[in-house]
């Protein structure tokens, strides 16, 4: 299995295959051969031994881009099969209307614009509230509210699209 892994700001080419015994893996990482002994203690919790060095790795796979907790470090990463559609799409670069996404999970406290309305850059669009804190989402550019997907009282998840500015 060949993978391209974006991790810690770098892209690594990793080829990996199961070794002779259960739990043993052989990897080529940017061409360098590495042997790893990996045991899944319970789902998402891995004990990884590489040349005697012991690593506790916890997988946090719920968000769009998965995250590893390697010891005390929190490391977001992306894994791509170089042939996959998503990979090509990401690497094609995206242009188009500006999308305003929820920066945290919460409830919509206020909607400050109407659909079709003209907005200035940095103008407030939606206010999200969670845990006694309010967060105002602003328009990234001058434009027009092409879509408005939430109303006051709605519950939103982090990353949900709230509005689209053209």
């Amino acid at each position: 299995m060949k993978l391209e892994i974006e991790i810690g700001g770098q892209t690594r080419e990793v080829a990996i295959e199961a070794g002779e015994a259960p739990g043993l893996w052989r990897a080529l990482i940017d061409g360098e051969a590495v042997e790893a002994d990996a045991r899944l203690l319970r789902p998402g919790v891995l004990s990884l031994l590489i040349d005697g060095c012991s690593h506790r790795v916890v997988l946090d796979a719920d968000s769009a881009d998965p995250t590893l907790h390697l010891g005390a470090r929190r490391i977001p990463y992306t894994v791509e099969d170089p042939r996959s559609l998503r990979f090509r799409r990401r690497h094609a670069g995206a242009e188009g209307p500006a999308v305003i996404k929820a920066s945290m999970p919460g409830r919509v406290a206020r909607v400050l614009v109407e659909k079709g309305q003209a907005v200035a850059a940095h103008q407030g669009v939606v206010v999200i509230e969670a845990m006694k804190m309010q967060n105002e989402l602003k328009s990234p550019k001058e434009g027009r509210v092409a879509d408005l997907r939430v109303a006051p009282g709605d519950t939103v998840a982090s990353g949900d699209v709230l509005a689209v500015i053209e």
Partner: protein
Amino acid sequence: MFQRILIANRGEIALRILRACRELGIGAVAVYSDADRAAPHVLESDEAYRLGPAPAVDSYLRGDLILDIARRSGADAIHPGYGFLSENAAFAQACEQSGIKFIGPPSSAMRALGSKTLARQAADRAGMPRTPGSVHGLASLDEARSVAASIGYPVMLKAAAGGGGKGMRAVSRPEDLPSAFDSARSEAERAFGSGEVYLEKLIERPRHVEIQILADEHGHCVSLGERECSVQRRHQKVIEEAPSAVVGPDLRRRMGEAAVRLALTAGYTNAGTVEFLLDEDQNFYFLEVNTRLQVEHPVTELVTGLDLVHLQIRIAQGEPLPFTQQDIHLRGHAMECRIYAEDPDNGFLPSPGRITRLLQPGGPGIREDCGIYEGWVVPMDYDPMLSKLIAYAPTRELAIARLLRALDEYVIGGIRSNLGLFRRLLRDPDFRAARIDTGYLDRLLAQPAPLHPSSAAPDNAAAIAAAVFEAMKPSAAPSASVAPASAWKSAARREATGGAPRA
């Protein structure tokens, strides 16, 4: 002896009080909102009753419903915890009138000390040092001008009903006073329903040092030493410790005596905290009284060896304090981290949601007062505190080392937490040297975070772990051989030798 105590709270503090009830052989009645049906305090209770929808105004702030459940479940007493109704004198009074013991001070003492201006007057009666300034609400801008001129700039405008930094303004020049006065008043009005503000001299680079007191209903009151809570963000405590690194026995005694005097003057009973500012010359100034158990009470428990919730319950039952001031001995050092569901890398935005992974620390010197479990959905309706991680050790240095060890064992997945903030804070040279004041953390956060010692070059381990997780996915295709045989030779040879320690 109480038969049954209703715990009018949620989260870690509800669980902590519930455990005290168990230990004293008292039934624990929990209440919950719709967001908390699966909360740990419901799971571990003896009885549990629904309050209402998730928002606090519909549930944990509904004193009427809570009193009704107390009556119907046969509870003798109500423990309010902290927050919610804990400093609500009207609720305490309603309990008194219903013949249900409110585990806290009498409502009269709560009223006398709950307003900051009234508390400043009480401090004067107790002969206690306080910051220069007014002891009544300012009637007008003119009065504000004249008080400020008499004590000298910089000054602080504060809301009498205040808390959490609302209605508070620092003013360094006379020309800034009018707008600050107006905005403080209107903010206080909005937040507390009272626009009363007063003025005090601003203390430069103060430490926040507070004294824990315990008073029984027979006129005995003791102080249990101080807590230093100078590490704050937006007036919210982040790390608390006992003892303070800069408070010696003489200062501790003087602050303790002042706090006890104030409590006795005000007819205070049960647990309470008298907060002070400590300036760079070791002068202390009365700040306010918290008429309840505090979040940070565990650090006092660890250095005194006492259980404050047990003692609160016993005091409320009318028992005299089982010790005198001379029996209180502080030993070792305790430090607490408030673990929050917030993202320090993203403006400290709240991060409610499902906890998908949870690895918790343990072992020597570690106490965790925790309100979460793996699978728990942290509601968006309440404050973001998940847990309190507390370390005890013989010295401050070792308490810090122990907390860092425990933080390294701690993993919270699915939501963001401020664990990383503590890993940074506890390694900061200024914190380690106890060069802290209430502005310390904001100054630290204004600097870029130092790189993690080993994060500069993300090592192979992370990439390999990611690949292993990918390869273990049920969907992963059976892999063809990916490397020429020769590439594996040295590895195979190394493996054949057995343990294969590094050379």
